[in-house]
């Protein structure tokens, strides 16, 4: 046997390679099924049926993720890496998609939107986002980013009778493609500087050689692209308009899942590459996002816009966890960021589920005045929203508290005292506008008739899941955090001497029994 066929053989994808993208495959299949069925079934019935197929797809995706987690390793010529880190984000993203679909059932009916591609687009978007979290190849990351982005562009414009929705979609699309172009440019420059687009190889290269100016530029450009996706200042300007125009459940989705995916990419890129000079960049972005987001939210009268600014602020808190450098600190930082994405997803999804239920046909009731007296007219809905808002403030016994706590703790550990101070002051400012909403619900009497319908089953389940997750993370955060810490170790860059040891950590594909 010569070496050539063996090398060739290795490039042919093996069975286990497909296992490592199994969730993505399953989600795609379900998405295609939804697309194919859509013209075949009666329009009246299609809403429910397609929704359930979509939900089934997400649940199957979760199962597949569990199966995938049993065979960690690299796949498709080192383009995809299954490790605890990607498993964490797979669970999170697909879980978010499932909850969003649950809360969409009723919304689609009330808004009289034909389900059609809606559920398929969510599934396809999820494929992109899930792939973002496991891709270790910059070009593949770009492709995954595009898959997820294009789905969200369309979903944003799904209230097609509303001008604001189309406007939001167009705005998001134009600015979004611009941002991904930046990302691609950054990837190209990184390739120019290091001769590779593989994150691990880039990391080794950067450790071995003196860092060129080109690398800094490449990192900055890539950060522009990802910063746009996570709505970090100064690339946040699109957020309020797009969130205001997009359908409420879609906002729930795109304020959590693509953000989580983009943060996953950012974590991989920043920490595995161990990007030089990142701390200044991230420091400024974190401080700016927190401050602009919170100050902007103070004056909003529209709840969706308010939550949009709040999501900018939360991106800022999250970015705090990126600004640290030393390897001991980075584990604390990565795990804090992972925990934060999970907690933020739970509470924000819940908040948007309430908002989308309350908005009613044509999203008529989305201003603060509409929420007046909700504590009396619908105590359960108001109490649920209150818990999510308290979690967004960061009040004890909620996930938001530990999320903020871990991030601040990590920043303090890394001696980022000023950034921590900016963070804690911001979280106090932030309390004001969430509190305003609570005050409006409980302490004012309603001045106009706002119909409140009973909570339908799907939404009830979605709310229960988000609520349970928020409270669970607030009382027993240990398990999630430990998992995050465990997976954080796989992201920290291999030390020059430890590269081989790192290679052993990932069992080669042959060592895994073939299914």
């Amino acid at each position, binding site marked *: 046997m010569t070496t050539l066929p063996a090398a060739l053989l290795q490039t042919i994808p093996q069975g286990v390679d497909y296992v490592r993208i199994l969730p993505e495959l399953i989600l795609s299949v379900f998405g295609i099924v939804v697309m194919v069925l859509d013209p075949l079934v009666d329009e009246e019935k299609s809403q429910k049926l397609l929704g359930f197929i979509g939900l089934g797809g997400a649940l199957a995706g979760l199962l597949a993720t569990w199966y995938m987690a049993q065979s960690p390793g690299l796949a498709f010529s080192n383009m995809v890496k299954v490790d605890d880190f990607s498993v964490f984000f797979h669970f999170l993203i697909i879980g978010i998609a499932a909850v969003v679909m649950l809360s969409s059932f009723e919304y689609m009916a009330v808004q009289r939107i034909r389900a059609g591609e809606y559920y398929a687009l969510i599934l396809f978007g999820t494929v992109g986002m899930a792939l973002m979290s496991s891709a270790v190849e910059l070009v593949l990351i770009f492709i995954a980013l595009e898959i997820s982005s294009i789905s969200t562009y369309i979903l944003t414009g799904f209230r097609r009778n509303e001008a604001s929705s189309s406007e939001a979609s167009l705005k998001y699309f134009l600015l979004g493609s611009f941002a991904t172009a930046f990302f691609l440019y950054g990837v190209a420059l990184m390739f120019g500087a290091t001769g590779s687009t593989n994150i691990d190889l880039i990391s080794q290269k950067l450790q071995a050689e003196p860092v060129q100016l080109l690398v800094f530029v490449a990192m900055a450009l890539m950060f522009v692209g990802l910063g746009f996706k996570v709505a970090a200042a100064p690339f946040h300007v699109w957020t309020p308009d797009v969130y205001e125009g997009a359908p409420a459940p879609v906002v729930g989705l795109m304020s959590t899942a693509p953000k989580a995916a983009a943060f996953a990419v950012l974590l991989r890129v920043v920490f595995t590459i161990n990007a030089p000079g990142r701390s200044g960049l991230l420091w400024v972005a974190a401080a700016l996002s927190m401050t602009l987001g919170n100050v902007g939210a103070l004056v909003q009268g529209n709840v969706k816009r308010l939550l949009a600014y709040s999501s900018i602020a939360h991106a800022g808190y999250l970015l705090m966890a990126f600004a640290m450098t030393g390897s001991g600190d980075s584990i604390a930082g990565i795990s804090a960021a992972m925990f934060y994405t999970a907690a933020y997803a739970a509470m924000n999804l819940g908040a948007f589920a309430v908002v989308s239920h309350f908005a009613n046909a044509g999203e008529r009731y989305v201003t603060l005045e509409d929420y007046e007296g909700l504590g009396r007219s619908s105590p359960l809905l108001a109490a649920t929203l209150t818990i999510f808002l308290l979690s967004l403030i960061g009040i004890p016994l909620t996930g938001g*508290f530990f999320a903020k706590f871990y991030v*601040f703790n990590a920043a303090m550990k890394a001696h980022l005292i000023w950034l921590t*101070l900016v963070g*804690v002051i911001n979280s106090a400012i932030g309390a004001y506008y969430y509190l305003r909403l609570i005050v409006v619900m409980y*302490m004012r009497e309603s001045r106009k008739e706002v119909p409140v319908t009973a909570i339908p089953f799907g939404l009830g389940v979605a709310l229960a899941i988000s609520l349970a997750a928020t409270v669970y993370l607030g009382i027993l955060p240990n398990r999630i955090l*430990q998992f995050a810490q465990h997976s954080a170790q796989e992201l920290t860059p291999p030390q020059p001497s430890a590269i081989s040891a790192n290679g052993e950590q990932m069992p080669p594909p042959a060592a895994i029994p073939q299914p």
Partner: protein
Amino acid sequence: MSTDSWSTYILTFVTFAPLVGALLLLVFPRRDRDIRIFALVFSLLTFLLALHLPVHFHRSVQGFQYEIDRQWISTPDIHYHMALDGISLWLVVLTTFLTPLCVLISWKSVHDRVKEFFILLLILETALIGVFTSLDLFLFYFFWESTLIPMALLIGIFGHERKVYAAVKFFMYTMIASVFMLAAILWLYAHTGSFDFVVIRDQIARGRVPNLPAAAQWLFLGFFLAFAVKVPLFPFHTWLPDAHVEAPTAGSVLLAGVLLKMGTYGMLRFNLGLFPEQARHNAPWIMILALIGIIYGALVAMVQPNMKKLIAYSSVSHLGFVVLGIFSFTQAGLNGAMFVMLAHGVSTGGLFMLAGILHERRHTYEISEFGGLATPMPVYAASYLFIVLASLGLPLLNGFIGEFLVLTGAFQAKPVYGVLAATGVIWSAGYLLWMFQRVFYGKVTKPVNLSMRDMIGFEKAAVWPCAIAALLMGVAPILWLAAIDPAVQAALTPFTQVVSKVVGQ
């Protein structure tokens, strides 16, 4: 259960009994009367449980008792660490003592959203007890922040005209101040690897914390700011009158009776316990602020046309005594500070209840609306006089002991402070008695006041225990001081060491 496990778990029972009550109320049918009875039973039960603490407390022991220490979260290393010493013991008892009275005083005055009211009240009680019992800094912060929500909601939902403004102001003021404490706690964790008060105190005392000398002043200020706003120390007091005037009676009672003490307790426990050198360093300007608070609070109270505002400013003045006593670093001063905290809780709680009774009947707190009330309401007038006398520091009642001890301590620290603070006692007699005279003596000026009903059973049941406690504390202060004194001695140990160091040089 054996006595051993009793003493391990008793604090957990006391702390969480009200919360259990609140959770049960959540699923309770909306029958207002039953809800009230249920809340009363649960708060009394908590009080009885809490009485176990002083009964079985070893008075001669300096350290912590009823200790329970379990790991709650492994990373970061957060413990469920609770214990009591003589400082926190009585504050827990005070909290559980006032809560049933709050339930009683709200019996008739709260008729809308009764269920929510009592749920919030019981949650607040748990949070307050938790603040005094936790020894893990994280747990402490957790309870500290937890008091905010129920209190803000009590003010904002059940308060008077400008309730929303007052609730938001209260929330924002204390929230913004306490994030600095969070930053300080995080710094300590980052440098010591522990949230445990005892561990951190020992590490600091042994000089084992890296970079501490550079940061200690900032850490001290971080803690101090959070506590000073809560106390409230001049010039951070502006939230207090608003919150008090707008709060429902029960809210005011707990706010003045217990919430303010969280601040002074925090200073005593954390500012003095963790950073003795910085405490000594900063004592001069803090004592001056306390003196300004004593005199300014009294003078502003003098000219208040609103009875509740008057009592609120008198709190600013009285709490100034507490801070003065704490930062005098003398045995007498600290004992006095502790005693004023308890006495103020009882007597000001009583005053707020009495003011609430008037508001119940006339829907106003304006002093000028009343006059000659002693004629239609003799029992009420007598009760009021008793509590007023207790509050202004008449010997044989509780206010006197504490103020006397604080003044002794202040004289030892710096005679001029003692002299200035002593004028505060005179002022307080002035504004309280003048208010009493305007409200109760003379002819009935407004015909509507003639038909006012005297105190009814619930109101008597709420106010009289305060009067009895005030008398008891005034006659037999040793019952309280016996437990406080050793704890205060322990708190002062680092200071006596500092002194001996200085003397040795």
